[in-house]
């Protein structure tokens, strides 16, 4: 996936002279995950710029650059290190179009490596999507496949609004040799069914997609035919596809790494219940990270949703009530 992201950035830089990358260690080093590898050499240190080490400064300066008409792409080195930039993101980036009645749109992308599962120590495993989703004015996007990594990032950079682009760290090393780049550029707001299933729908995104696909495989043995729906963009949210799928199966489990309390799954479960109530055979359940600070690496497997936890939720979908 990291290579697909790299290719998307390279193609965007080549296609539009207004695209500028800013971040910490993204130049000579190519980023701590090597997503910007080779870009400074190819496009020069001004278009792939190592900035001083200050996230609010990076995002604030990128905001000013976007006000002038450039299309900055910011890299936050890790999820938790994006927090110093939170004020700029919430008070300015998300609001600039609105507070100026559309006069100053901000075509700005903030790339954030997020989530756990890579054995990182404290502050290297946060799933921060709920903060961003709760901020009107931002698009929130997260790819789960190599093709989407390319397509959604190109779309993010081309979008005339700010996009928080969440890159699942543990999928950086994922490969898909069937994908030929450049892949299609995908519009936002369309969930995709990664696997069809008749009995229940696993609604998920980002790093939890492979977990759900594995769970669906395992569920076969128990006699459940599970569908896996990859949301791809959390904002805008694809109510239409989610509801169509859940209406078909009548059962849904939302799966994500972020904490459950007031997390994305709460919103999704509420929306599905409000819209599909009479089609539901069971309450919408959630399998999420626990409501705890992200745990130390030796304990993270007890925190992250896994196949067993997904299957045990599926087992609780009130199958016994089926007539």
């Amino acid at each position, binding site marked *: 996936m990291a290579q697909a992201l790299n290719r998307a950035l390279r193609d965007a830089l080549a296609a539009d002279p207004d695209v*500028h990358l800013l971040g910490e260690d993204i130049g000579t080093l190519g980023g701590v995950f090597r997503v910007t590898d080779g870009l400074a050499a190819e496009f020069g240190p001004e278009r792939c710029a190592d900035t001083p080490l200050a996230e*609010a400064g990076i995002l*604030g300066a990128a905001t*000013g650059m976007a006000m002038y008409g450039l299309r900055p792409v910011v890299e936050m080195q890790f999820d938790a290190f994006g927090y110093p930039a939170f004020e700029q993101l919430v008070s300015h980036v998300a609001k600039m179009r609105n507070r*100026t009645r559309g006069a100053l749109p901000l075509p700005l992308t903030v790339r954030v490596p997020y989530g756990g599962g890579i054995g990182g120590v404290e502050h290297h495993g946060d799933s921060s999507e709920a903060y961003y989703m709760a901020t009107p004015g931002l698009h929130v996007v997260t790819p789960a496949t190599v093709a989407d990594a390319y397509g959604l990032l190109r779309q993010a950079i081309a979008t005339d609004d700010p996009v928080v682009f969440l890159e699942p760290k543990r999928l950086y090393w994922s490969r898909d040799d069937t994908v030929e780049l450049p892949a299609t550029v995908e519009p936002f707001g369309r969930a995709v069914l990664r696997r069809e299933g008749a009995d229940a729908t696993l609604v998920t995104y980002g790093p939890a997609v492979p977990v759900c696909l594995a769970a669906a495989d395992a569920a076969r043995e128990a006699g459940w035919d599970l569908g896996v729906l990859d949301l791809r963009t959390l904002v*805008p949210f694809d109510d239409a596809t989610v509801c169509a799928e859940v209406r078909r199966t009548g059962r849904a489990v939302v799966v994500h790494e972020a904490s459950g309390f007031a997390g994305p799954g709460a919103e999704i479960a509420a929306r599905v219940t409000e819209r599909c109530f009479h089609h539901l055979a069971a309450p919408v359940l959630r399998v999420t990270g626990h409501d705890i600070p992200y745990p130390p690496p030796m304990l993270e497997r007890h925190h992250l949703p896994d196949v067993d936890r997904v299957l045990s939720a599926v087992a609780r979908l009130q199958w016994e009530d089926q007539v």
Partner: protein
Amino acid sequence: MTIVEQPAATRALLPEPEPHRVLGTGAAPDARLWPELYRLLVRGRRLNEQATALTRQGRLAVYPSSTGQEACQIAAALALEPRDWLFPSYRDTLAVITRGVPPAAALGLLRGDWHTGYDPREHRVAPLCTPLATQLPHATGLAHAARLRGDDVVALALVGDGGTSEGDFHEALNFAAVWRAPVVFLVQNNRYAISVPLAAQTAAPSLAHKAVGYGMPGRLVDGNDAPAVLTVLREAVAHARSGGGPTLVEALTYRIDAHTNADDATRYRPPEEVAAWRERDPLTLLARDLRAHGLLTDETERAARADADTLAAALRAALNTDPALDPLDLFAHVYATPTPQLREQRDAR
């Protein structure tokens, strides 16, 4: 204001070991510029009074007055060319108006019919910024972007003494210096952040000293001396324009009114202090100099006041009508294309 002496060894290591103090230019009066400055100061003072009155009539939600700081306000706007950008804070409506934004539009935020009452691109004035110092990195970024594009554009950003304690102040100045961005930072040191005096804000010998740490020039100027502020800002703008990078200018001034109409400044400021600063009123100072040089007559003074009254009356008239409000506007500018969720909420109204 005393400037602490640096040890000679340190001084030798630093490109500019301490800020330059320009507490007045001592320049001979400019027979064209100074009377014009005075006219704008009178206008600015009148607008401050009018806006405060409009809060009492419920026509403005709140007004942070710049009474006493008009010299900084006018000079900040006059130091720039039309192609440059101004980054104001909530207290800087006068600078925004002096740059050409119609008064009623400049007051849109404080009237409350929308967050920004003008199109920032038209006069190249960023929205009035309320989260302290957060506009400063925008100024740095915009100036940097202009330089990357090869455009001859300078940004000037305003901030208060309290705002210099914010992290964004530090980050904006550091980025600007590293990038040699064509940006000027003007600190209006009016001695207070709401109720908190400068001594509780910083242990630095002056705010201009902070420039030293960033490797940029620092200037300390009498913020109630309009020609002096304008001279220092013009020099800083010229320095930025010629590729010299950013400058930090500290203007020593005083907020004569309370923080806003909703504040009670008697809780934290002795009346003698306010009275002493009234003696140093920027309008009085300039009028005295002008009269001494025969550049201000009773008649020109009257004309300046009449001009200010006309503008104030127009502002009153503009704000005494109820603005047209459309609740559907709430959904209009959140995204370029509304999300399905917003369309649904809009249509349900």
